[in-house]
């Protein structure tokens, strides 16, 4: 083969290799940055965060995975992300819509509410027609082993915050769970509305949060799949300085 042909072949081969490398790099770096971070700002000294957990989701690749959604405070849209930011040193009021049914914890210690203001959560159940069921209760422990009562948890271990998220109660949820995500109160599914508050730390940084319920269906110990993917059941709470 002539010199130019050899040179051309070598350059082409090298560029192919580099191209593969760049594609790989862009693919996985890009995919991590595709998740939006929902920025919550304080108003009146408090910041209001809204999350929901669903029994399935609206993605095309893995529609059966359970997932969290985060609500954009300005557009009120439910975004399929688990990254949000709050200002430092502020009282954070969290509202979680629990649309998913119950699963027992692997370690029932996390049934106890820890790290919130007062170490309690308030729970109000709703039926599939968006009517309240019973009174709003204040719970310091939602026992996932005694009754069908906990859907997922919201835990920020670095802050000592461990909150069991109530599920729609058993009788209420028979064939009544929301089946089109992201669920809304009007979309026809029973849900539980849970609220709690905690103080965001004064030190800015990324604080990871996770669910402790083994809700990764089909995965060993229930801890695979959505449990180990950012944007589903694991995320970051970024604390930004005000």
């Amino acid at each position: 083969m002539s010199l130019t042909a050899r040179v051309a072949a070598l350059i082409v081969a090298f560029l192919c290799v580099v191209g593969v490398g760049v594609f790989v790099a862009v693919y996985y770096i890009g995919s991590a940055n595709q998740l939006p971070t929902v920025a919550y700002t304080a108003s009146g000294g408090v910041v209001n965060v809204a999350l929901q957990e669903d029994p399935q989701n609206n993605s095309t690749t893995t529609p059966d995975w359970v997932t969290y959604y985060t609500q954009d405070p300005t557009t009120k849209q439910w975004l399929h992300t688990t990254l949000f930011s709050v200002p430092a040193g502020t009282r954070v009021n969290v509202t979680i819509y629990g649309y998913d049914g119950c699963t027992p914890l692997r370690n029932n210690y996390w049934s106890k509410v820890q790290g919130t203001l007062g170490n309690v959560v308030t729970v109000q159940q709703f039926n599939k027609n968006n009517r309240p069921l019973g009174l709003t209760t204040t719970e310091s422990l939602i026992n996932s082993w005694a009754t069908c009562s906990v859907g997922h948890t919201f835990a920020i271990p670095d802050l000592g915050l461990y909150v069991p998220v109530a599920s729609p109660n058993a009788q209420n949820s028979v064939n009544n769970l929301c089946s089109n995500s992201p669920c809304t109160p009007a979309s026809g599914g029973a849900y539980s509305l849970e609220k709690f508050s905690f103080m965001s730390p004064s030190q800015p940084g990324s604080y990871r949060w996770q669910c402790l319920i083994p809700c990764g269906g089909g995965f060993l110990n229930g801890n695979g799949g959505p449990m180990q993917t950012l944007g589903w059941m694991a995320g970051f709470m970024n604390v930004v300085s005000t």
Partner: protein
Amino acid sequence: MSSAEIPLPAGRHAAEREQRRIWWLVAVWLLLSLAACLVIWFVWYPHLPPGDMTTSARHQQFDIAVLAVTAAPVILGVFCYFAYVLVVFRARPGDDSDGAPIYGNAKIQAAWIIGTSMIVLWLFVFGTVELIVPAGAGAGEGASPIWKQSGAQTVAWTPGTNDILQVQVIGQQWTWSYRYPQFGGMESTVLDLPVNTPITFHVTSLDVIHSFWPYLLGVKADANPQVDNVAYTTARQTGSFIVRCNELCGIWHGAMTSNGTVMTPVAFKVWATAVQAREKANGTLAALPPYALTYDPTVIPQLGKDLVNVVGVTGAPGYFYGPGNPVTP
């Protein structure tokens, strides 16, 4: 394979020069080794990781210092020798001749083999002694440890006595929690410990393999599901420490940390009884499974059935509660 050497270069001067150079080499090596060993032992040893907070950490410090003192002359010897030969025996520019056809030297070979074997045997004996004496040197010894710590196994723990404090370390994806059987099996997310008390860690996992590594305590024990891995230590100084996970366990492995404090025994007892009382009062203790050395999270007596038989080992929403509680969407 002859071991003949070529005749020495002409003249006794060259031979004497070579002999002198070799003595200088040995002298330099000895001096450097002495300096290194002194620096290692007196300057570095007190600050060696993992510190001196516990007995196991102190023994590891000592162990590493002795290893370093053994290794330093070896490394320096090889480096000095190479420096010497690379300078003395380099080919001068334009010199195309061959080197001396030395195929071997039985005495040197024998001396080397014997020397290295002795060093290795010394290291083995020393390492074994250092493993046995501190009751396993803080490493996880499995469910039936051979080298146990001294102390009294008691149901309730009293400060100021030789009672061993039992702590169960539960690793799960992706957080640590600790149970104290001598305090009713209460569970905590912080690892508080009393100083000057023999401590037995029972490390287990609820899902995949983790590894319990409180670095400053000089303890490392893998957490395996359905396995009780025992490690011993005794804290000698108060202070706080961080527990890290040392075995890759999934997405949050790098962030699976936990805090702990070593405090005075009386303060510890106060804390532990307070937590026990609080958890008894608010129903946490009742919600926990009875204390056991290992747990099968799919067997929940309150639910009256074996979860495994229903759906398999995978987690799945809701199927565990029987026909009265179906929760499929």
